[in-house]
């Protein structure tokens, strides 16, 4: 394919959603149909462009060495310019592929999710989720049905802007525009979590998400500044594909913990990811972010934005591994590995005790992202990228599936009119497999992929690769932690599937649940194809029996991004057995524990876990901890310390003391000097003197001109005499 054409196309890919955003906001926000047509059309255009680029990229033989590149001067800095541009190398091509698919799927899904075509709600108002509308059917019966979202157009505008941010992030060739896309997504995340801003919980969750990720972002900004001042560029190729720069960075030392510049920059940038990808200790925002509409959770908080954090770490992989010998982990890598593995395990344990269908998935997302981070920490580059992509597919699928379930449940709630029933609580569900067959099957596929169900699902292949890497390179602690996390993942996934779909309906609402429209189920089907099929492109060559049947395309392709192509790990039976055991064991355990769950029962885990169950249910009390030890002190620091003590009391106090002193001095002068001396003596005194003199002298003023003349004559004579005698 024509090189020029492809590079032009790369520039154009992010633009349609941005254009859609402006069009909807400025012109078409009154028309729902027009707005979603524009948005979905834009997503379709971007998808088309992405696919063309992807195919072109796959067709290039040495894409890693010669990626599609194009750049322009952006900021003048002294005599040079900071350049920005676009680049498609194997990694970004692979990421672009899943981004385009998930975004398109979610755009289409949103049409159904926000009840397009349904009547307007009776009491709906912007800022609150739709409450349903009353319709009268042909027989004169009144029904309550789902009502269309009042801010329907706005939703499509926001996700359009979001898509622009994500595409920008993927196609950019430097860390600065990556950061631009990163932050635009942050904004959209804020706007979309707070989409139903009338709910205080949504409002607070939005602020929490923005602020928590911003903690990471400021470190990332420092990292960018550091990297930029150390190398004079932020371009991927000039830094990560340039052995000279990497060596220089690896050799440069910093005063911080004796780390190399490469390590410290890597760490700073990584903290950005900790925020964005919700890694411990900045994980607390992601579960709360489930306050947003479900397509948002699927797109932003599962498939794209949180993945962007991992994508960035994959990007900077050459940087923080620059001073890595290949065996002993560097400080930065150890930190990354630790945080990843710890998060993977820690979030999985919380997920076990959650009852909200979306919250389980949220913690599962945190956990899986931790998996990828851990993989990167131990140097498993390709495995992390592979898991990133498979996870994006099946997690988007699961989220959309859960949205479909919630939608079905809401249908039931409308039917019975009992609004106390929480349509997101899994305890209220059960037996939905018959009511919502498409949702069930696709959810099952997604859940199995997440658990790593052997051989067929994509999750198995990618997770297995990470475990194998950890095992072969003898990172025992990480291997064991990740294996345990995988076990728990399988367990809570099965718990979720069992509670939702199996058994008998536990409420009347679940009884009346209904399959969702095609705009919602079609994306599910498409994504489930990838949740299974995408694993097959990365089957290790030496895998027993089926290895080598399909070439390990993914490794070859994405591995080509690096200057030094990574070698595939040697096959070992232990990790394979481990992943088989944990996946099947976890699934089986979940099924056994929950298959007989009845309405009104306490969770079967409550007894064996004891007080730990409460700890898990309350997410290890992290929110409370942050509230007490960070937010409260900061509020005190700003409201009391800064505003009251420093500004109002200390600084203004000094100023007012000056004013007071001057005022006092002035008063003193007035009372003791001005009033008696200056006014009394000089002022009033001279006035009185003049007045007295005037009174005395007025008798001279006779009014007779002859008297005046006589006086004048006399004076003249006196003067003449004086002159005559004295001079």
């Amino acid at each position, binding site marked *: 394919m024509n090189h020029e054409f492809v590079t032009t196309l790369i520039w154009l890919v992010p633009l349609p959603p941005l254009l859609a955003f402006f069009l909807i906001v400025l012109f078409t926000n009154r028309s729902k149909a027009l707005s979603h047509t524009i948005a979905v059309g834009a997503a379709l255009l971007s998808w088309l462009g992405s696919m063309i680029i992807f195919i072109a990229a796959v067709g290039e033989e040495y894409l890693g060495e010669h990626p599609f590149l194009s750049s322009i001067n952006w900021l003048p800095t002294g005599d040079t310019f900071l350049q920005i541009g676009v680049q498609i190398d194997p990694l970004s091509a692979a990421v672009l592929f899943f981004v385009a698919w998930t975004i398109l799927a979610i755009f289409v899904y949103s049409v159904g999710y926000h009840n397009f075509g349904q009547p307007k709600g009776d009491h709906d108002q912007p*800022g609150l989720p739709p409450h349903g509308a009353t319709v009268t059917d042909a027989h004169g019966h009144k029904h309550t049905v789902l009502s269309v979202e009042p801010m329907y157009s706005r939703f499509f505008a926001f996700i359009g802007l979001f898509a622009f941010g994500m595409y920008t992030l993927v196609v950019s060739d430097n860390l600065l525009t990556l950061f631009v896309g990163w*932050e635009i997504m942050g904004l959209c995340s804020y706007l979309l979590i707070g989409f139903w*801003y009338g709910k205080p919980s949504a409002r607070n969750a939005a602020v929490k998400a923005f602020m928590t990720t911003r903690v990471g972002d400021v470190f990332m900004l420092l990292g960018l*500044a550091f990297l930029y*001042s150390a190398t004079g560029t932020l371009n991927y190729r000039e830094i990560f594909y340039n052995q000279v720069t990497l060596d220089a960075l690896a050799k440069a030392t910093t005063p911080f913990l004796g780390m190399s510049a490469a390590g410290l920059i890597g760490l700073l940038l990584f903290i950005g990811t900790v925020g964005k990808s919700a890694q411990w200790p900045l994980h607390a925002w992601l579960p709360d972010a489930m306050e947003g509409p479900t397509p948002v959770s699927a797109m932003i908080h599962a498939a794209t934005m949180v993945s962007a954090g991992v994508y960035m770490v994959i990007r900077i992989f050459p940087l923080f591994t620059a001073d890595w010998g290949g065996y002993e982990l560097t400080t930065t890598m150890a930190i990354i590995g630790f945080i990843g593995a710890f998060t993977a395990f820690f979030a999985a344990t919380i997920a076990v005790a959650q009852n909200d269908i979306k919250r389980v998935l949220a913690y599962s997302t945190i956990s899986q992202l931790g998996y990828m981070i851990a993989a990167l920490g131990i140097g498993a580059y390709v495995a992390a990228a592979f898991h990133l992509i498979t996870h994006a597919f099946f997690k988007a699928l699961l989220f959309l599936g859960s949205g479909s379930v919630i939608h079905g449940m809401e249908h039931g709630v409308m039917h019975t009119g009992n609004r106390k029933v929480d349509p997101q609580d899994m305890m209220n569900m059960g037996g939905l497999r018959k009511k919502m067959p498409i949702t069930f099957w696709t959810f099952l596929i997604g859940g199995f992929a997440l658990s790593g169900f052997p051989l067929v699902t994509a999750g198995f292949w990618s997770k297995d690769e990470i475990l194998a890497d950890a095992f072969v390179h003898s990172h025992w602690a990480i291997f064991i932690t990740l294996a345990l996390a995988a076990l728990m993942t399988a367990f809570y996934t099965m718990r979720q599937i069992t509670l939702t779909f199996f058994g008998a309906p536990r409420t009347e609402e679940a009884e009346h649940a209904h399959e969702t429209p095609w705009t919602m189920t079609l994306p599910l089907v498409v994504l489930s194809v990838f949740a299974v099929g995408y694993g097959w492109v990365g089957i290790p060559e030496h895998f027993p029996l089926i290895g080598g049947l399909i070439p390990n395309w993914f490794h070859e392709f994405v591995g080509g991004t690096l200057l030094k192509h990574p070698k595939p790990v040697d096959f070992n039976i232990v990790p394979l057995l481990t992943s088989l055991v944990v996946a099947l064991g976890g699934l089986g355990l979940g099924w056994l524990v929950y298959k007989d769950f009845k309405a009104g029962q306490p969770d079967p885990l409550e007894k064996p876990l004891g007080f730990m169950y409460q700890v898990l249910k309350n997410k290890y009390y992290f929110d409370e901890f942050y509230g007490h030890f960070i937010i409260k002190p900061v509020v005190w620091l700003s409201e009391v310390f800064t505003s009251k003590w420093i*500004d109002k009391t200390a600084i203004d106090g000094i100023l007012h003391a000056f004013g007071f002193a001057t005022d006092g001095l002035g008063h003193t002068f007035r009372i003791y000097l001005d009033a008696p001396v200056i006014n009394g003596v000089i002022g009033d005194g001279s006035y009185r003197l003049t007045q007295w003199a005037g009174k005395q002298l007025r008798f001279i003023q006779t009014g007779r001109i002859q008297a005046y003349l006589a006086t004048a004559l006399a004076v003249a004579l006196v003067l003449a005499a004086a002159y005559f005698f004295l001079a």
Partner: protein
Amino acid sequence: MDFISTHLLTTILFFPVVAALVIFFIPGDQVKTIRWTALIASLVPFGLSVWLWFSFDPNKPGFQFEEIYPWYEAIHSSFHLGVDGLSLTMVLLTTLLTPLALLASFNIKEKVKAFFMLFLFLETGMLGVFMALDLLIFFVFWEIGLVPMYFLINQWGSSNRNYASLKFMIYTMGGSLGLLLAIQMLGVLFQTYDLVTLYERWTTLEGTLMGMPVGTVKAVSFWAFVVAFAIKVPVWPFHTWLPDAHTEAPTAGSMILAGVLLKLGAYGFLRLVLPLYPAESQYFAGWLAFLAVMAIIFGALGSFGQTDFKRLVAYSSVNHMGFVLLGIAAAAKASGTLDATIALNGAVLQMFNHGLSSAGMFFLVGVIYERTHTRNLDEFGGLFPLVPVYGGILIFTSMASLGLPGLNGFVSEFLVVRGSWAILPGFTAAAMIGLLMTGAYILKGVRKVLHGPMNERWAHGEHKLTEINAREIIVMAPLMVLMLVLGIWPAWLLDVINKAMTLLF
């Protein structure tokens, strides 16, 4: 036409005064005529500065469009005007914001004539500072700007206006006493007030003034300059006049106060302190950076701690101007390096950007204050459904102020951080706390005003909140367009700034 092109700066400078005199002869009850005359008159300097912008050659060193007239020959002071890339940027900002502020003041009902006349005088005062190339003229315009501002706060301000206007006036005057003294010392010593000559002869001059060697005179005048400019910027801990003055001023007054007047201080640092005192600046750069970081952190914390919406925005100026100062401090520390140039680029661009975003924010606060007569954040809540357009504009402007990439604030903050990191890493890292808190207070504002359960008081009846009207949208539109354009393609402005900074330092 020929006259205008050869006297472009004087025309821009004095046109507002002439317009004010014309308004003087319009009867006071012809409110409409007065408004429109003032607005149209303020568009002329804007148009001329756009012309100025396009005929300016950024590659030429030194000042352009110079005009010099004898003024006070006995003491060797002349009326010398000229612009370089730095002052040009500021002139453009001033002439851009003035018409918008005037349009924003169309709702002023009392003493309309006086208001608009004072405003036009104010414009001349500010422009004069940016254009002056003679220290005495610089000082004259510096002080001229104060007087109209004092009256604007004092006459059209809100409840606590007497206190605020007095604090503003006395504080700034106090600062400029030293400035006058320093200028006079330099003038006597050098036998000229001409800045261009001063630049040339600065390092070579020998001699004494009243028994003090040149070095001492320079040191004294350095501190006098620094204090005067620091109060104006304002640098922590000289900042407490700012929240009071900004909060009490009428909307248009706050727009100009935050948009342009604060820039005078930073401009003073760039025009006088850094070029004239490189050694002293370098020596004290650490302290300057310390104060800058304190301004960034405490400005943000202070802002977060407010319950008054306008005060919140006012404190944000302390925070944002701290970044300007951080860039200046970094440049002072390592003058002439690439890092310093980047930091200065960031600082100057931040001045321009802050001018746009703070003016916008103050205006938006004014819009809602005019309708609800309260600025207390706790009395708002959930207003988004009532005023969707206003809400969108508020979020947009807030995000620009927050430094969201894609909008203007980010570019300048990034450049400052990038430039100063290489020079003052510790301070830059500490400044990040402020950057974090920037997010906190901006979101606090949005959260309390727009989001959350709706405060029913504003939904019905006599207090029903009305949507932002066309005039108000026209005020915001140019600001928003510029915020977006500068965020996406800042090169057109940054190019001029960059060349000026490279030539200057």
